[in-house]
């Protein structure tokens, strides 16, 4: 075979390969579907407190071309239930998982196992163990601290002789723990007596516990469900002169603030929790070697008079979606 024939065959082969490459690119372009399917698992997903979070998830998913599936869940979930739910979603073709981890021991290990298969992003709280799992949340220590500062501000820095009751959904979750630590760090040396600290799933009427608690001057609710439970109890029974402060992110919490039942509301930016967690997961799906990072979102302090400010209205807008 002479040189010219060799060159001719070489050129034809190269052109043939290019034709195949471009034909496949063209066909691939025509069948381009969503970037992936992301399962979102949070406790009591139909609750008011998740509206802004879900809106954020939806907006980011829409922007990034991700198929987001928010699973319907109960307000209480065990580790086994959560694991079962995740595995069932993975079997159904989920490419990534955004999950609010349960506070049970072993949650970290279970989620580390899931992370080996698909990208995982934790939201709202961390797992009890030390892990490399990324988290998107509002700084719980900061939230607790902010709540305490607002309280101090209202009492003009003097809480000497005042009594305080603390409400929290759980006491064993890292988030509740951190919020309490942040709260106590500010309250330390202020002369306030924490008379009681109760925890429970207030959805099922545990708020009635409040009636059996000794009278206090101030009640601090460290999460949305305890705040709304306390708000509901206060609106029907009153708090015997106690002032209610809390951390919350539902319209219900905002309503109690609007009504004057809650004195001050510290609201984590739940829209950003949803939006940023989904954006991170979308990056993981889009970029081959991308590793999701921790994301810290901000929070806003709302008072009754600032509830309908520009910022307050935006927060209410996301909560109302």
């Amino acid at each position, binding site marked *: 075979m002479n040189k*010219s024939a060799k060159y001719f065959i070489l050129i034809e082969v190269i*052109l043939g390969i290019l034709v195949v490459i471009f034909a496949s690119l*063209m066909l691939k372009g*025509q069948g381009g579907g969503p970037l992936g399917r992301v399962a979102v698992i949070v406790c009591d997903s139909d609750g008011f407190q998740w509206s802004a979070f879900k809106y954020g998830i939806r907006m980011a998913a829409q922007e990034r071309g991700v198929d987001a599936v928010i699973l319907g869940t109960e307000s209480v979930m065990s580790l086994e239930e959560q694991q079962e739910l995740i595995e069932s979603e993975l079997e159904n073709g989920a490419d990534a998982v955004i999950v609010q981890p349960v506070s049970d021991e072993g949650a970290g290990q279970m989620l580390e196992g899931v992370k080996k298969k698909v990208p995982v992003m934790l939201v709202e709280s961390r797992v009890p163990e030390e892990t490399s799992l990324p988290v998107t949340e509002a700084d719980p220590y900061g939230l607790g601290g902010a709540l305490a500062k607002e309280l101090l501000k209202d009492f003009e820095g003097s809480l000497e002789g005042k009594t305080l009751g603390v409400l929290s959904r759980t006491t064993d979750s890292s988030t509740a723990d951190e919020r309490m630590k942040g709260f106590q760090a500010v309250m330390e040396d202020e002369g306030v007596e924490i008379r009681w600290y109760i925890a429970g799933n207030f959805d099922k009427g545990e708020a009635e516990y409040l009636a059996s608690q000794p009278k206090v001057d101030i009640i601090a609710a460290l999460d949305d469900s305890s705040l709304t439970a306390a708000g509901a109890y206060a609106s029907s029974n009153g708090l015997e002169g106690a002032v209610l402060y809390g951390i919350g992110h539902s*319209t219900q919490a905002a309503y109690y603030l609007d009504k004057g039942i809650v004195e001050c509301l510290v609201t984590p930016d739940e*829209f950003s929790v949803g939006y940023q967690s989904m954006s991170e997961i979308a990056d993981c799906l889009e970029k081959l070697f991308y590793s999701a990072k921790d994301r810290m979102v901000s929070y806003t302090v709302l008072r009754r008079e600032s509830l*309908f400010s520009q910022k307050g*209205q935006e927060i*209410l807008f996301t909560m109302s979606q």
Partner: protein
Amino acid sequence: MRRVKNKFLRAVRLKQPRGIQTTVMLSFSVISVSIMLIIAVVLYLRFSTSSRQETIQSTQRLMEQTGESLEDYLVSMRQISDTAYYYLIKENDFSTYEEDIQSRMNLLYEANRDSLQSIAVYDAHGNLLAAEPLATQKENLNVTEQDWFVQAVDEVENMHFSTPHIQNLFDDNTFRYYWVISLSRAIELTNDGKSELGVLLVDMDYSMISRMLDQINTSENGQYYYLCDGSGEIIYHPRRIQISDKISHENSRTAASYKDGIYDDVFEGEKRKVVINTISYTGWKLVGVIPYSAFTYGMVDMRYFIILLVLLMAMMLAVANRIASQGIAGPVLRLNESVREYEAGEKPEIYIGGPQEIRHLGHSIQKSYEQIEDLMKKIVLEQNERRKSELDALQSQINPHFLYNTLESITWMVEGERNDEAVFMISQLARLFRISLSKGRTIISIRDEIQHARSYMNIQKIRYKNTFSVEFDVDPQIEDYSTVKLILQPLLENAINYGVSGMDDCGEIRVEGRRDGEDILLSVTDNGIGMTEEETKFVLTDSDRVHKHGSGVGLVNVNRRIQIYFGGGYGLFIESELDEGTRVIIRIPAVPYTEEGTRRLEEGRLE
């Protein structure tokens, strides 16, 4: 620098010129690829331009339709406001017809509840007079500070559309907060027979507007639509919260300053087309944003398709070009190949075929080669003739020399009355001449050459009075092989003259002959004075150097004659040592002495 320049020039000099087929194919390929690329680029530009125009036009159409829907919606809201004012409020006294007003407002509300959030009437102090749906107003609420109220009171002659906001009027114990756009106006109401100023508020459900715009914000190519008021305050934006959270940004203030039309805009480094459509009465701007990337979004597949087409065409053109170039260059290449083969001596035939011009060329080359061949034959013949005449001249140089010496010896014999010796010598001379002549042939048998040498030595021995002895030791098997005649005689002459002539009765000359593989070796050895190494070295190359006593013909002539007939590898080889003697060896090929062999040697063709 100079080195680089030289290297480049050398590379250019060494570069082989391209073949004709390559040149033809390259030219065709360059032309066809250029045309193809031009067509592809023109097609792509034409298509992308029309696609861009189509995108802009469809955006405009969509915006017009959406604008009309928005206007219809806003008009219907205004009509509700007008109906409420002119048919319910203005005509009735609140103190007397409050229930009637309320029920008619309820009817109005129920008829439009899909698009309405609420209708409310306030007096000038912000007291609620009537509202639909019936709801409890929030405690400690001062509506007079709310924007819609302020605007209505400030500009009583107009209706005012607010930007979207959370309705902050009624206590909703379902924990809901409604995002509304307020249409407010100052009204004249009658209470207790007195006419007073009031404010009519129609809160439109924001979701109606957002749904309308959500429906058109479905594009995946980055194109989107938003709504802002005349000052650039965003009413609707698909990334409204991201903008308020500063995650995303929008150039709404600039867009609000534009009149209806299409504008080029650069925002945060991104080039985009902005289409503006103003909504009547409100002054709101419906803005369509088409990033330039959106124009190429749908074009990616088209790009691939055009590239695919170009590649397929290139493949086909490569085949077509090759066939065409082979058709044109093929006969030329075959002609060239046959000329090369002819030059290498492989094929005598020159290719004659292809188009008329190539055939003519083939014929001409064939004819030229035939002529060259004839000329070459002539030259070879001439060369042979010349060589033969040179040889004859050499031979003629020997004969007179020898004859002179012999005759001189015979003269001495006759003068010395040695008649028998003279007779013997004359008979030997006669034999010598017979062989010398050999019917004019140059090639004779070794037998005759040895006989010639014997005759010569017999003559010389008489002449030199047997002062030396001669011994012949020749293998009889080599006698029937061919040799050039008269090659031993000069050697013997030298052996006598320079070897043994000065010795007293002890001179010995030995003539030997034997087969050595494919060659025959003849040698003449004497035990004379011999030669130095330097003399031995130059005896065959420099004829002027050693012939102090000789004829000037001697060994050089013999060597040359052997090489003329048998080639450079044959001839004389000399071994000599001073005061020990000299041995001269003749090496010739073993060519049998036959008619054919002799003839071929005579013609100078030894193969």
